[in-house]
């Protein structure tokens, strides 16, 4: 197993397309997204029950090498600044197959 950093990003569903674009621009090769996430934060309750996706979040999970973390974060931060949401970094081990 190989040590990796796990990145978890939760932000607007509408913004996820841009998040992916930014990550891929940084050379991220793989990620997973859970599209329907509701939640609460500074901008209040994102109930996901509207007709638009305006009040819905998505959850993105990706992994990267410890050395890349900073770069990825800096790339994503402006989006979170503009849009809100969170980004968590934690340690994990990747099962090579």
């Amino acid at each position, binding site marked *: 197993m190989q040590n990796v950093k796990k990145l978890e990003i939760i932000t607007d569903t509408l913004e996820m397309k841009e998040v992916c674009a930014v990550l891929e621009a940084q050379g991220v090769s793989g990620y997973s997204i859970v599209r329907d996430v509701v939640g609460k934060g500074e901008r209040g309750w994102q109930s996901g*029950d509207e007709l638009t996706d305006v009040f819905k979040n998505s959850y993105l999970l990706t992994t990267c090498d410890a050395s890349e973390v900073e770069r990825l974060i800096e790339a994503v931060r402006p989006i979170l600044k503009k849009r809100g949401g969170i980004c968590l970094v934690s340690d994990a081990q990747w099962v090579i197959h």
Partner: protein
Amino acid sequence: MNLDLLLSNLLNPPVLFFFLGMVAVFVGSDLDVPQPLPKFFSLYLLLSIGFKGGVELNHSGIGAQILWTMGGAIFMALLVPLYAFWILRRKLDVPNAAAIAATYGSVSAVTFIAATSFLSELDIPYGGHMVAAMALMESPAIIVGVALSRLGAGAQEGEKAHFDTKELLRDAFFNGSVLVLIGSLIIGLLTGEEGKKALNPFVSDIFKGMLCLFLLDMGLVSARRLNGLKKLGTFPIGFSMALPLFNAVLGLLVANWLGLGKGDALLFCVLSASASYIAVPAAMRLAIPKANPGIYVTMALALTFPFNVLLGLPIYLSIINRFWS
């Protein structure tokens, strides 16, 4: 205003199901219409209204009168956000003023549909081209709104502007609702009577029922939004009732000047008075991130929509009845 009109509007099933939805929220019921069912209903409604409009257009043909109406529709869609913005700036910052202005410049398909079912109940005829007018009114306000926010905000977002523009035009003219509406309209126009024979049971017979289901959900959604009202303060609340009225009157003046019949006039007026809570918010969310959707969606969905559907329709029609010979 005419009380019979008010009652005959409130007492038809779709409006009553809208009430039922609101009641469900007020009594704290767990009633819910989970996604993607509402998307299914709105997809169905847009497809049906578009297709039927196209078929009628295929019968009536496209004359000068109709083209003038289209022009008038676009004119309203461009004008409304301008003065709305000007008013809103008295109290709100640029991003929010611009987003709200765009919301009110655009239209609400369901309000339009409610109006058509209100008319058909009173046996007042209307033209299929009004659907085309609605389709034309969805997008311009988005452009105007964003332009206003750019001008107001100055060039600080300048560098991202270009990319935005491309995205924006796409969201404005090719968003799902506009595309289905126009697409179905064209399909109805192309297939005409033939197509009508094939699709009528689907797009007409069960239409009212699907509308009831959708309005049931609209009742739930807009009642939930009402909780957001307190935070809004009095100005937006008053605004979301006063502006539709003003837009409606202006719309009626234009409709009269265009020489529209009673039915078309009501629809034209409702289009001017209604505010978008689907296409525009999605676009504004991306184009004007600084604007708070908790304000512009709540105004359009929790106040203006019910106002138009419950009170607006009979009010506007009684005005028409007075001034149309």
